């Protein structure tokens, strides 16, 4: 028996919401970063669910795309965070607001 698609979407939405809240309220750059990953994976889940629902592979392909992008992002993002930490002895995102106008 097939689990209804809505179950997956609800889980996906919950994950995304958790991720969003994390991005908005947490200060630690690593946690913010993990929250972003959470959001990405929530979207991946939705992709795969829809893929299954429609019975084609488009969603799967997109999920792979976003995984690749996420991986690349992790590489760059972590490097930045580590550099910032080395410089400032802090991983708080509020400390790197130097690009304000």
């Amino acid at each position, binding site marked *: 028996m097939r689990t209804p698609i809505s179950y997956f979407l609800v889980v996906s939405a919950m994950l995304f919401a958790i991720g969003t809240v994390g991005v908005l309220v947490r200060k630690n750059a690593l946690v913010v970063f993990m929250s972003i990953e959470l959001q990405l994976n929530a979207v991946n889940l939705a992709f795969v669910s829809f893929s299954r629902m429609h019975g084609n592979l488009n969603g799967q392909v997109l999920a792979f795309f976003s995984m690749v992008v996420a991986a690349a992002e992790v590489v760059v993002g972590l490097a930045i965070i580590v550099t910032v930490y080395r410089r400032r002895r802090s991983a708080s995102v509020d400390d*790197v*607001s130097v690009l304000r106008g």
Partner: protein
Amino acid sequence: MLDAVWVIPALPLAGAVANLFLGRRLGTKAGWLGTAAVGAAFAVTVAVLLDLLALAGPERQHIVDLYEWIAAGDFRVQVSFLVDPLSMTMAMVVTGVGALIHLYAVGYMEHDPRVGRFFAYFNLFVAFMLVLVLADNYLLLYVGWEGVGLCSYLLIGFWFERPAAASAAKKAFVTTRIGDAAMLLGIVLVFVHFGSLEFGPVLGWGTSPSTVTGAGPSEGAATAIALLLLAGAVGKSAQLPLHVWLPDAMEGPTPVSALIHAATMVTAGVYLVVRSHALFEMSEVALTAVLVVGLLSAIYAALASIGQFDLKRALAYSTMSQIGFMFFAAGMGFYAGAMLLLVCHAFYKALLFLTSGNVMHGLDDEIDLRRMGGLKADMPVSATWFAIGALSLAGIPPLAGFFAKDHIVGFAYLSGRELAWVLASIGAFLSALYIARPLFLAFFGARRNPSHAHEAPWRMHAPLAVLAAGAVVSGLLLGFRAEGVLARFLEPALGLAEPGHADLSEAVLIAISIVLAVAAVGLAWFVWASGRVDWEAFPERQPELAGWLSNAFYLNAFYAWLVRAPGMGLGRGLRSVDDRIVDGAVNEVAEDVERASRLAPVLQSGFVRSYALAFLLGAVALLLFLGLRS
């Protein structure tokens, strides 16, 4: 030889260039080089003159085209020289008197460290003056005209360390430039109406090969042209109302005053009017203007001269007055008379100036007549020269000035201008008075300067002797009668003036003239040399009259009041308009852009969180929008 006329200005020009670049190395020899250049020019002028005299009277006109100068559209003008009696008369005066004054200046300037520069400028002046008088068209004449103005500027300001000299130089240049600008407009108008700038077509000789494309001016246009040219002449010749620069120009070295501001440059205006007489005759108004300007200047300057205690300023006003007489003659159509006075005046006025140079040399640059007196004991030769020059100017027969002036004054009566004749006679009386005054004040009477004056060396007397001879005999030789040698020589260029008939015979007129001159000299002796009049107390007794005379009726102050404050006000006003409004608008726009862009940073907090929130809200809004629409 006639074709070689261009050599005449080229020689002093070469001298100028040589002196400019080699002056420092030449040292005192610079003066001799300069004198030689002008002397050679004089020799060439004589040769050209002899060739010209070899031609028959009506054919005495030779044009030498050198090359095409400016050409654009319909406008064409050549560099070309004109040899005719008028230009040769002027060239003779310029090179002859010029050479003598150069010779004098060799001695006068020998202790100046910049003697090379001096003679470079001096030679350059002669070159430009020759271009002026030899030019065959108005534009080339204008080249010389501005060129002599430049040299006048450089030489008045020769001792530029003195602020007074620098200011006087600038004043001279700017004041004459006002006239010159008007003259330039006149020249442009000449071209507009005649389609040519050459003297031949414009003045109606008809011998020039170039075609006249213009239709010829109406009387109104002719009046405009003539008045504009007159404005140029008035500026250059220091006539009313553009005369204010001349007294100040005496800041220059004395040979400069003699050559430029007495003998030659200031008479250029007379030359211009005489040369363009055909233009002036097209308009009654213009000729009358010449006459009135001349007569007023003659009397005004004569009165002003009487009030001066600065010897050179007195002579400067005297020059202005004499040139006024020349304008007066030209305004009556008596061009030969104007030219005769021009020639004679060049001799005696140069003599007077150079002699005053001797006096300044002898008295350590003392120039105030009140601190001279009795100099004839110390400087007998100079005193003689000054007396000859002064009496010649005063019109004591048979010296040159008598003939020159008498013809003009007499002509006024004979041509039926009784009022002008009366005024001119008054002017003549005043002339004799004002020139006898410095003679008596400086050389006669009581000695008022304790220092012992020393006489100038012979080198400086040699040119004076020649000038003195000229001041004595030039009138007799060139103009014994109104239709004398000079008048007949000039006839092909100027025609002969025909005075009408009058009630008084010429003999009576001459007698009146002589009586006036002698009376004036006698009066001058009585007041300033006899010791019976306390002239030094005059300013205290009549402060108003003395003030009016010594300040030349306050015209200078009036101009300063008229020009300086409003001019500076306008300048300051426009400058602040430029800074505040024109530039202010530009900066205002820039600042507005900057201010507007300052609103943007509010959105750019630098907190990723805020961006994410904005992002989220945006996404929600978009979703809501799409959802509600469907």
